[in-house]
Structures are given as C-alpha cells and as structure tokens.
C-alpha cells in the first residue's frame, strides 16, 4: 500500500517560481507541499552567481543565490518546508483531484493528493544535437548551463579554449565567466542575424572583454575523436543553412552551446494540459490556471523569461489562485469542479507578435492582468495595441522606442475596459507612421535601465 497524504496545494519545483507560489498559497491560507528533486532549493539560480537579479522586485542588483535566498527566507518565516530530493515519478487525475506519485530516499514511494497543482518545473537547455551539429562526438561539448555548473558550483574548468555557439543570455554570461576564470574564448557565434541576448549583456559580457561576436554564422561540425580539437564554423543564408565555401576551422578544446531553453512540461502533458506550440508552455488565463482546471503553471515552465522578477510574479499569481481553487473545490469529491467554470476570452498574437501570455482571459477573474509578449523582429518606433479581433475598441495601446525579440515586454491590462461579450482580443504591433516619428526626431536605441 502506497501511503497517501492530502494537501490543499502541491507545488512542484522549488526554484524562484515554485518558492513564490508556495509562499503565496500559504499566505492565502492553504496547506502547501513544496517538492524539489534536488538536494537544495533555488533552482538554476544556485549557479547564477552573476548579479542583476531582482531589480524590478527588490530595486537592487542581487546575485542568483542571493535572490533565491530571499525567497527561501520567506518560506522559512512561514514555516514552509521544502521536501527536498523528492522526485515526481508520475501524476494522474482521480475524482477531479490530482494524485502525484513521489519518491525520496527517506520515504520510498508515496503519494500526495491535491485539488490544486502548481507546476513550477522550469526549463531545460536545447542541446547541440537539436541544432544539428555534425561531426565527431568527443568530450568537451557542453550546454552553457552545464558549463556554468562545472565552473560555479563544482569549481572546475571545462577546458582551456572555448567556442560559444549562441548569443542568448546564458551564452554571453558564460563567455564572460570563462574569460574571468582564464579560459580563452575564441568567439561567440550566432546563427541569427541579430544577437539573442539582452543589450546589457552584449555590452557587459562581450564588448567589455573584447570577445568577438559573429552573426549569421554557426558551428556546423565538431572535430576530435576523444576530446574536442576544433570546430568548423560557416556563414548561413537567409534560411539559416550553411553556405558552402564559407567554412572556417577554429581550434578549441571546448564547445559551449547556448541555443535556447525548452520549458519542461512532461508532467503537464501527461495530465492532458494543452501546450502553446510557440511558448512550449501551457495555455493559461491571467490566474495562471491551465486549460485543465486545478493545474497551474508559472515561471520558466510557462514560458522562457529573461527576468527572474517575472518568474516570481507568475509564481505568486499561480500560488494565490491555486489556494483559491482549493477552497472553492473543498467539498467537491466527485470532480464537479473539474468542468471548467470559466468564461474564457482568447488572446491572439497578431501582426509582428511572436507570443502572448496569458493566452486566455477569464472574464470573471481578476480585473488586473499582467500581459507578457515578445515581438517577432526588432522594431524601432512601434505601437503595440490590444483590441477586439472583430474590430472593436482598443483596450491597451502603447508606443515603444524599440522592441527586440530577446526582450520580453510586460503591460498591465484592466479587464474592466473589455466590453461585455468579448470573445477574442488580439495583440498587434505596427510601426509608428514615418511622418510622426520623423517629427519627433531621430530616436536612439535606449539602454535598458533594468534587467540582467
């Protein structure tokens, strides 16, 4: 017989999203279990020893471990224990509730039952294999996060001379980190024609250290039977295919790949939670509840964020809403509440917009809803506008000096401005008319004031 414990809210993952969710659910009066598979809480922040975390939330620049520590303290103050080294084997629905099969060295296999499940499972890194790097398969090929773990947690160097593929934030931060530790960084290569990281990181991690960034160039092949000896890089065409004849061999013993993050949603998928093919996270409403009532998603499992502050924000929202859901369904033993009681308004990503979260608005839910979006291409002087798809009134409109795909934008929507009976809204991006823009004079790209 597998022992079973009942909780009002179970949060999976004790990184910045899960910690925030657990605290918020606790504050809303729920009995919360926070489970974490690693020996220490904090998620990936544990190895992010650079600063720049918490500028939005705490108005100061913290390191990753410091930021995580603040939340750990919050959990401790509330007497919230993190169930560490506890691994989620599987999850299933049973009478409108969720049963999690868990395992730990101390307790063996056990089950938690809950009406409200918050998935704060973070993301994983895309690997060299997923960007079709060919050639040999020697030691010395690491994702940026793995290299970061070697250097910052284990205090070891992955090699002596590194090539970095991908100009996302982790790749840029690792370029600086490795340089500081005495590793020669031969260059950062980016397949896209624009850098993928935040402007701030391009300046502070590459320019300040004279590390060259090669755009529209990728690593095509690895050489070396046992340990990396060199990589081949090549320019790419408009459809990102390597151009014959542009190959160049770069001697190195390490290849760091920083080619994107994938939200981890295997548990969500196993519960039948529909996923957004663009964000790879669940579709949610403004309360972070997915399309399976009782399942909530937040942080990097919901979508890849560039600011941890937003990770915690969605965590808190999810935790609060999970507690409310638990109260609401307290008496519901047969799963009446598992029928979705919400009236959902779809939020579509329109012209120039790559993704929007939340993808739905619950017409009967919270009035104030933060909306996050990313644009498809860099645009200077653009107007973002949220309006009814059937051509109705605009509910949000804002001009931006510059919008870049790597930078997630956020605005707050007031749902009371939505006309009664709205079925769908759409977020569009349009260039500001040249005449008007010109009249305001040329606009320089602003340096972002906040954000790592």
């Amino acid at each position: 017989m597998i022992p079973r414990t009942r909780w009002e809210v179970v949060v999976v993952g004790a990184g910045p999203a899960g910690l925030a969710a657990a605290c918020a659910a606790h504050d809303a009066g729920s009995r919360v279990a926070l489970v974490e598979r690693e020996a220490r809480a904090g998620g990936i922040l544990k190895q992010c020893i650079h600063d720049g975390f918490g500028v939005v939330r705490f108005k100061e620049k913290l390191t990753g471990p410091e930021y995580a520590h603040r939340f750990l303290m919050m959990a401790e103050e509330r007497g919230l224990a993190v169930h560490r080294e506890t691994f989620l084997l599987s999850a299933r629905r049973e009478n409108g509730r969720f049963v999690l099969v868990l395992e730990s060295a101390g307790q063996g296999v056990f089950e938690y039952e809950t009406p409200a499940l918050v998935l704060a499972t973070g993301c994983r890194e895309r690997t060299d294999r997923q960007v079709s790097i060919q050639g040999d398969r020697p030691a010395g090929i690491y994702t940026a996060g793995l290299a970061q773990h070697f250097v910052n947690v284990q205090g070891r160097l992955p090699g002596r001379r590194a090539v970095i593929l991908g100009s996302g934030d982790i790749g840029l931060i690792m370029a600086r980190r490795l340089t500081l530790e005495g590793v020669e960084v031969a260059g950062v290569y980016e397949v896209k024609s624009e850098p993928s990281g935040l402007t701030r990181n391009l300046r502070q991690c590459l320019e300040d250290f004279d590390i060259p960034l090669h755009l529209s160039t990728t690593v095509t092949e690895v050489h070396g039977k046992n340990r990396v000896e060199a990589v081949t890089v090549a320019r790419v065409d408009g459809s990102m295919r390597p151009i014959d004849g542009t190959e160049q061999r770069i001697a190195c013993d390490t290849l760091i790949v920083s080619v994107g993050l994938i939200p981890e949603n295997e548990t969500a998928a196993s519960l039948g939670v529909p996923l957004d093919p663009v964000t790879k996270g669940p579709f949610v409403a403004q309360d972070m509840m997915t399309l399976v009532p009782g399942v909530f998603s937040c942080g990097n499992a919901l979508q890849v964020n560039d600011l941890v502050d937003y990770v915690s924000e969605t965590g808190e929202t999810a935790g609060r809403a999970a507690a409310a859901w638990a109260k609401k369904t307290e008496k519901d033993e047969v799963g009446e509440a598992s029928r979705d009681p919400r009236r959902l308004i779809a939020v579509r990503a329109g012209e120039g917009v790559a993704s929007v979260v939340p993808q739905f608005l619950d017409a009967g839910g919270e009035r104030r809803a933060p909306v996050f979006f990313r644009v498809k291409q860099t645009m200077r002087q653009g107007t973002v506008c949220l309006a009814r798809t059937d051509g109705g009134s605009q509910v949000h409109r804002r001009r931006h000096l510059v919008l870049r795909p790597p930078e997630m934008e956020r605005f707050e929507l007031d749902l009371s401005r939505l006309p009664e009976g709205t079925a769908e809204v759409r977020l569009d991006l349009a260039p500001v008319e040249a005449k008007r823009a010109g009249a305001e004079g040329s606009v320089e790209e602003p340096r972002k004031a906040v954000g790592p």
Partner: protein
Amino acid sequence: MTRLSSLRSALDRKGYREVAVREWRSSVVLEGSLPSWNDRVAAGFVAAGFKYKGVVNDLEVPGLARDRWSEPSLRDGALEGAHFDVVIIGGGIIGASIARELTRYDLSVALLEKQSDLAMHTSGRNDGMIHDGFGARPGTLKARYNVRGNRLWTEDARELGIELKRPGSLVLYPSPAAHLLRPLLSKRARANGVDGWEFWSREKVAREEPALFPEQHGALFLPSAGVVSPYKAVVAYAESAVLNGARVSLDTLVSGFDQEQEADRTRIARVRTNRGTCFARAVVNAAGNWADVVAGLADDRFFSLHPRRGTDAILDLSTGAFLKHIVSMPSFLQSRSRTKGGGLVKTVEGNVLVGPTARELPGREDYATTRGELEELNRHLRLNTRLSPSQIITYFAGVRPCTWEEDFIVERSQQVANLVHAAGIQSPGLASAPAIARDVAALCVDLLSESRQVRPNPRFEPRRQAPTSLGQLSLEERSALIAAHPAYGRVVCRCEQVSEGELVDALHSPIPVSSLDSMKRRTRTGMGRCHGGFCTPRVMEIIARERGIPLEEVTKKGEGSRLLEGPEEPADPPATAPQGEEVSS
C-alpha cells in the same frame, strides 16, 4: 579462359586497367591504385563476382591517409605469461557471446578488447534489431545464421535477463503493383525458413499501425522481428561469461602472434598484447572492423573488409506512442541492394529510432555524422504521419564490417591450426550472434579436442541476475528496495529516471568500467531528452567517489576524453605500433 583472366577483362571493361590482380592461395589480391574510394569499392565488388574464397583489396587511393585503429596507451604485464585455452579477440556482440558459450565447457577463456569498454564500435552503434531473416539472400551464411539466431534470442535473453521485444516487422509495398511480387516473396521467406510470415492488406496495415502514411499498399508482416538494447546485450553476455569463469581484459590490443610451424600449417602459441604476452591453445578472431588485419597478424588474410557507415537518429520518448511495429519500405523488394535500406524501429526502451543509412566511406572508426546522411533519414520519417525531424534528440553513426562477398565468415582457418574466424559479421550480425556463438564454440571445442578431452563446465550457470532497474519494479517493490537501500531513492537522471543506486551497481558490476558513456550504456543515464545537461555533474561525482579518483580524471569514453580541465594526462603511447598489416587506404 581462366578465372583470373576473366576477372582481368571484367576490370578492364570497368576501366580499371591500372589494377593489378594476382591469385594468392585460394583468394585474389587487387593491388595498385585507383583515383577514388568509390572506384576502389567498385573494383572490390567486381572481384567478388568470381567465386574466389576471398577478395583481398589492397588498392590504394592517392591522398587518402592510412586507416589506423585507435590503440590504448596502457602498458602493463597483466596478461604476461598467462595460459588460456581460448583467447577471443574483440569485445563486441560476437566475441562476448562466444565467450559465454565457451564457459559452458571446462575451459579457461579470455576476451580481449582494445577499448576501455565493450560494445564501443559496431555492436554499440546500431538499431538493436533482431532481424527476421527475410532480408538475407537464400543459401548464404547470413540467411542460415539469422533465422537460427533469431529463435535462439528468446532463450538467451531470458537467461541473461535482458529485455527482448518482438513487435514484428512490416515491409511495406512501395506500389500497388508490388502485390505481383508475392510469389517471389513467399519463395524467399520459405527458402530462408522465416517464422510466421504473412501478407497484410492495406486495410489491415492501416488498422494495426494507424499513424502510418495513407499511401501504403499493404505489407509483408514478419512477426519474429524483434529488438534488444545492443550494448546491454553485449555487456550481459560478457558478464555471464565472467560469472562463469572467463576473464575480460579491456584496453588490450593484440599486436601480433608467436607462431610455430606444424606440418603444412602453423599454430599460434602466444598472443602479444600491450598488457603482456599470453599463451593460447585456440584463438578466435572476432575483431569486427579489424578482423582482416588480425587475420593478417597470423598470415591468414584471405579476405578483406571495407567499412560501410550507417547513421541512425533517435526520437523523443513520446514518439513511441505512434509506432507499434518495425516499419520499412524498401525501394525495390527483390533486392540486389546490399543493405535492407533502413526504416523505423521502436527501440526496446520505447523511443522511435530511424535509420540506418548506408555509405561506403573510408575510416573504420570514423563515426563523424554529416548533415546529408541525417537528412536522408527524413524519407523514413515520412512513413509515419506523427513523426518529424524536430523530434530527433540525438543521432550517431556506426560502421559495418563488410566482406566483398557480403557474407559472414565463420570457420576454422585453413592456414592456422588453432585459429577460428568470425569475421565480416555485419547486419544481421546482432540477430545471428547466438547461433554464430554456438557454432564457433563448437569449432573451438573440436580443435581443442584434438589434443585433450574437453568436458562440460559443471558449475556453468546460464542465468545472470539482471541489474536492478527501478523502472521494472512495482511501486511497492520500489519502495521496499529504497527502504533497504536509500540510494535507489535518489534519482540522478531525471529524463530516464535512473537512481544513484543503479549507477553504483553499474560501477561495481562484474566488468568494472567508469566512463560517462559506459554508465550511459549500462543505465541509460544521460540518454533522455536533456541529454545529460542536468545529470552529468552528479554522475561524474558518483564515478569519482566510487572509484576514488579526482573529479577531473573522469572521462567521457576512456583515455584522452577527460571532461574537465586538470593536471596533464600521461603523454601519448610510445611508438610501438602493431606489427600487423593494416589496410592502406
């Protein structure tokens, strides 16, 4: 016209006038040089049509570096002066299964492998398919061993505690007209003795395999086709051999034989290796892609091998839900083709595997993948409407050791009294292994019986306790195990759910190995969708702890493949290259 002059004219007709041909014993030797590798291959195949015992293709291609085997730098005397009844060269599926077969007898057996682990070449780099036997040409050794080996796998897998699944194989017709080939297909299936085959209509195929593309026209169904984990199988055979008294010596390269003249033949007295010279009453050549070179060390190179590379890709575990059978659609069924053309296989772990390709390329240990070969696999993905290239989590290449005759060599040497060859064992070698092993063991017993009686091993234990795999246990069993051994409750590899306890078991298994890839092959750690991104540091720490070595000495795949920067490794091996002939290429 003599056979040699017919071959001469055939080569001339192809434009290969500069190729010199001569007969040597019962074989034919091609010498000289040709402008390209493709020409060299074509000339080899031409020569194979003249029914010599073997084709020794010594043609050179200008500008192409000599193909060399990788060799261990280790030098010690671990084997010095040791006496063995049988020395087996090569720790792949063939060598390992032969070793285990031989432990049924009261014999001292040594299995020598030049790499730091077993199954690091062809046996660890394939699709794991246990072929049904339909694909082989009737009358060949391949056809004979495949069907017999396929049947024997049931017994061996049960005894060795390895997972064998028999999903069956669907050979799809490429066009409606392929129905006309049914009599030919039946004839071949009967000739090879394939078990349980039947024809499936288009409707039945669609019903049984619903995600298949709609343009199929029915299929030949071969229910005996199965899958195993090929590297786990090799380890299982070798562990069973060790538990029954055999010795496995890794990092051990055979560099030559000391032979004695004996009437019209020779006899191997001693086997020279980098770990000392040992005595052998019988020697088995199961050296995979280097079997011809090893034969040459005994002056018995009556055949030669050419590498044919195959690339496979593995899809995310979630794709397993969309495939039940092994599925392929050969471009022409009545095949003069030299491979079965690849397809979709659901691995024993449940991932979809797509492949393999087949390319004649120099480089017997060249596993570098190319974009072109990977893209070739897309045509197989199109067979199933739910599969796409974006689901690929990894890909790899393997090299098949092919003779020019395209058949296995399983026989006693005609020149060396105590040498047995198991060579040219390419696809369907994995399927055939149990049958080949039994025959080679019998040949060894025969030749050893010439000098003394060979008795059965009274302590032979056919059953091997399979390593604990938590995924195979019920939750209650799992919980009980964790209560007794908490390390099983600490999950290290999150994607494949591998616990610390399972890793520790692998590190203390009968054949101790300690590289990251060795751990992968035994436990599947790091083989999931994150591909080691999360578990690598933890696995390295466990290896370092259990082996008592500093973290920076942990390697990916043995010598020269350290994962972290640390103090210098020992310098390169001294220049004591093997004395044997190596195929120049």
